[in-house]
């Protein structure tokens, strides 16, 4: 087990709702962004003297721009239906991590300054002045929400705490209280093109290395092209896919699928990142700026289609927002949806029969699947509602004989967050990440014990990194997390492939 200076939650056989213990996570907060990380995003570097008035102005501005914020701040009846739905509450007992508890941090200020009842009867309706303490609470608890939207599934009005958290982070950014992790990364995307700050040269080297590895292993020259003008498909994938484990095995898989499908494709050094942390900080402007890179890359390269690699929030931004932020995409081939998910592509090829599959490549695994929040509750795949659940499972089952789902209340739209989404995947929030993973870890451990599950597949860069990090805290093997396209890669038999030794690649991957 990994060492920790906090208590690691105990996993139970049956989920239980813990009692309220106020303040258990009041100390948790991420590092604040220094001025140098704020300025590239057009946010002030530090808290100005009149921060209070500016914050209220910012709130008023957002209330006028987002119907969600306005309606949700008014409509909550405190029915309590959401109180036991957030993994951070379940893992920490802190009532300010109950979705409505989190909303109320903003709502009490909204009521005080924007509603009749709050202006004249603050005590009665729980309205409060915006003070330094309240701001500190905001900073702490709005960085304990992974914007997973699980609460919005269960709220009778669909109140989405993610919307509230995004607005709160935007307000804080506008008064110079930004979060280092997100804002530094967005700056890197603007400067270099991706979250990890991989420059074009390094990217080209990495891809070349991949080509060599795959050729060595299979005897087939699968290409991983970069900046190829005139290619049909632009693949936009999270930069973790370029080197982190198990992400990179997924990228190898995408390449193999494209190769077998016989399509021409390319990555772009300009849009070498699918992630869009602009969403996490609730900043339309920054999210738009990050998205525009993809449009520009598609135009410059003259592609016909855009396909996204495995990433949760990136797929939300791509599927739900890209057309809004960087559309219209009338210069692309109208035969295909813009954008497409790599799983939509692969599933289509599997159905067409273009891929030769040898499931024995995955015989050493019993696989379960983690629905990533943003894919499950904020987007879709395929033509029908719920395609985002079916297509990944269909693909897994097509390449792997042993598949088991986790408990029904922890999958599909009720899936539990990995604990690291929404811009919280940073070491300064380790305690939160470990505790927030509890409900997922519980469900996973149950299928391990009951069904001998050996691996959990995921389709999100954040989920993969988060699980790799937190599994050991719960006494589980960090290598049990796999990419879905890694499973595809293990099972696919390339035309002209020499070595049949797929087991080896599975071991490498694991």
């Amino acid at each position, binding site marked *: 087990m990994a060492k920790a200076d906090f208590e690691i939650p105990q996993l139970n056989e049956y989920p239980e*709702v813990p009692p*309220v213990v*106020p303040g258990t996570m009041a100390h948790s907060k991420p590092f604040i962004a220094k001025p140098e990380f704020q300025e590239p995003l057009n946010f002030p570097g530090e808290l100005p003297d009149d921060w209070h008035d500016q914050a209220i102005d910012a709130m008023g501005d957002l*209330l006028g*721009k*987002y*119907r*969600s914020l*306005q*309606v949700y701040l*008014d*409509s*909550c*009846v*405190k*029915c*309590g*239906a*959401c*109180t*036991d739905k957030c993994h951070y509450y379940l893992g920490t007992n802190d*009532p300010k991590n*109950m979705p*409505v508890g989190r909303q109320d941090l903003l709502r009490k200020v909204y009521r005080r300054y924007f*509603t*009749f*009842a709050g202006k004249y*009867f603050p005590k*009665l*309706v729980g309205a409060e002045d915006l003070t330094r303490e309240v701001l500190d609470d905001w900073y702490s608890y709005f960085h304990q929400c992974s914007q997973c939207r699980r609460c*919005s*599934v*269960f*709220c*009778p*009005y*669909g109140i*989405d705490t993610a919307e509230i958290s995004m607005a709160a982070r935007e307000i804080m950014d506008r008064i110079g209280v930004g979060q280092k992790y997100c804002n530094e990364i967005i700056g890197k995307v603007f400067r270099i093109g991706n979250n990890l700050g991989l420059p074009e040269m390094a990217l080209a080297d990495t891809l070349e290395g991949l080509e060599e590895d795959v050729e060595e292993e299979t005897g087939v020259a699968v290409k991983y092209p970069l900046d190829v003008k005139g290619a049909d498909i632009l693949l936009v994938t999270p930069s973790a896919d370029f080197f982190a484990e198990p992400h990179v095995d997924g990228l190898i898989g995408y390449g193999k699928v494209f190769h077998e499908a016989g399509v021409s494709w390319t990555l772009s050094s300009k849009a070498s990142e699918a992630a869009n942390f602009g969403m996490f900080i609730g900043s*339309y*402007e920054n999210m*738009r700026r990050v998205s525009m890179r993809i449009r520009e890359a598609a135009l410059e390269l003259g592609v016909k289609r855009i396909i996204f690699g495995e990433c949760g929030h990136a797929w939300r931004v791509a*599927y*739900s*927002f890209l*057309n*809004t932020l960087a559309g219209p995409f009338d210069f692309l081939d109208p035969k295909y*949806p*813009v*954008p497409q998910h790599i799983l939509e592509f692969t599933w289509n090829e599997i159905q067409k029969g273009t891929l030769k599959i040898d499931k024995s490549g995955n015989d050493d695994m019993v696989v379960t699947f983690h629905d990533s929040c943003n894919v*499950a*509750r*904020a*987007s*879709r795949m395929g*033509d*029908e*509602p*719920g395609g985002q*659940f079916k297509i990944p499972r269909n693909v897994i089952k097509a390449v792997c004989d042993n598949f088991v789902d986790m408990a029904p209340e922890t999958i599909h*739209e009720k899936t539990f967050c990995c604990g690291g989404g929404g811009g919280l995947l940073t070491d300064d929030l380790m305690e939160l990440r470990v505790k927030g993973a509890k409900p997922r870890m519980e469900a996973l451990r149950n299928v391990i014990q009951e069904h001998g599950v050996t691996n959990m597949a995921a389709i999100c860069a954040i989920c993969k990194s988060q699980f790799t990090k937190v599994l050991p805290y719960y006494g589980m093997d960090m290598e049990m997390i796999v990419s879905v396209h890694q499973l595809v890669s293990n099972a696919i038999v390339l035309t002209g492939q020499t070595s049949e030794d797929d087991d080896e690649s599975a071991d490498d991957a694991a």
Partner: protein
Amino acid sequence: MSFLTIAFAALFYAATILLVVGLVRRIMLYWKTPAPLKIPTTPAPVTQGGVVLRMFREVVFFESLFKSTKWTWLFGWLFHVALFAVLFRHLRYFTDIEWVMNVVAFVSPLFKYLAFAMIIGLLGLWVRRLFVDRVRYISAPSDHLMLLLLLLIGVSGAMTTFVTHTDVVAVKQFFRALMYFNFSEMPNLPTDPFMVVHLLLVALLMIIFPVSKLLHVPGVFFSPTRNQVDNPREQRHIADWARKLEQ
């Protein structure tokens, strides 16, 4: 006219104006505020018809609440259904339209008793609010008082119906006179204390409606996570303020 009658006449005019103006302004505000991004909670309907159906299930059956917490659903749904049945029965104080009167008369023998369902629902919700630590934590005084208010309205109404047997004809004439500004024919209100309390609290409810959490009533229809069609790839969705960024 008695002082009581005049005071209530004034009170109900004021309450009605505050209710209508307040609600219309809020609804206009929700209407005018753009939803710049597509954020339906998925899986979501891919057609407008599907959205109407989803909203129908939410409003009529409290579908999402049913998925969350069976007890809250049970008491909450009981309360709301009974409330609407009770209010439906109240139509007879405001209208003379024959078929409405007939329908009301037809359902009345049953709907009359739904006052108790409403009270039970409210009590159940309150017990939950008082004894479930999570729900107690999120409750402001106004959340308790709202339940108290509705309970008192319900109990006072039931007292007039089942115990004191208020002169409902006089009540009806009073409200119809109010509605048609026909003051010459306005009778004195009954002085049954339960009726007086009932009407007083109803006026209070009307006044606080647009400034309280009762805004969930228009709010539910404006919730973007529930009322948006899942078709962002097919149809470009953009708000006016966002379009300005493109220039």
